[in-house]
């Protein structure tokens, strides 16, 4: 049985790592559309895929957050990626399969995956 004592041990272990991160300037933001339309289109597995990918790659300078419906319901799940000092990039019809490329190409290497963006609609 998991106990609060275990959580306490986890806290003590995490306290050392946490101070060294999260200076706002280097923080990358990933916003996932969690309106009714986003959720119905599959935003929850996309969120899970992002968490998994960030965890695997040990990327601690990325914040996952949510946004509501932005009125483009037909393009959900929508994910917005904001690199510090750059314009927001809007990815549309994101699936868990697309997530690893968005993370590796855009978040890690700074190259936008044009064909997944809203500008890449054919």
């Amino acid at each position, binding site marked *: 049985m*998991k106990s609060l004592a275990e959580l306490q041990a986890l806290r003590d272990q*995490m306290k050392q790592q946490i101070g060294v991160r999260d200076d706002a300037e280097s923080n990358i933001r990933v916003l996932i559309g969690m309106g*009714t339309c986003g959720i119905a289109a599959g935003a929850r597995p996309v*969120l899970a895929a992002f968490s998994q990918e960030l*965890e695997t790659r040990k990327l601690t300078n990325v914040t996952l957050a949510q946004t509501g419906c932005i009125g483009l319901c037909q393009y959900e799940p929508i994910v917005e990626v904001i690199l510090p000092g750059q314009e927001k990039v809007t990815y549309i019809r994101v699936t868990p399969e697309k997530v690893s490329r968005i993370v590796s190409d855009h978040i890690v290497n700074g190259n936008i995956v044009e064909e997944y963006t809203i500008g890449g609609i054919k």
Partner: protein
Amino acid sequence: MQELSLNVLDVAENSIRAGATLVTITLTEDPARDLLAISIEDNGCGMTAEQLRQVTDPFYTTRTTRKVGLGVPLFKMAAEMTGGEFSIDSQPGRGTRICASFGLGHVDRMPLGDMTGTVLSLIQLCPQVDFCYRVARAGGSYEIDTREYRQVLGEIPLSEPQVLAFIRSQIEEEEQRITC
């Protein structure tokens, strides 16, 4: 929506938008009465009587980005098509409580789906909000409460991956305990 757990996520998002600091999700499964009951209760800004009257109308929304508000009507429909009931109580400044019941064995009842995923998504995306998740099934019951975790964690956010992994394994252990 393909799972009730996605409806729960969607309705709980309304609580977040209402500025709630505590959201309580209760799930009761009672095979003897052929009943599945889900409630979502918050201490957010609540709704006026006028809003409450319109909230189940799919063509009513407070948002300006689009003209429809489908979350609550979809949840209501999911309940009613299984012979269940739907109710919503709200008071401005006090909060809102939504209750839905379902015919557990009804052919049109959507699968519950990944409730753990819903609860963890909420905690991850809204680490400043507290969530209480209560489950009662024929085999027993359990409750998890982020206020307890927060007390232990201090300034460490609930959205940290290790913390989420801890909460996930706690829910999974409890589920296993009451389904055995």
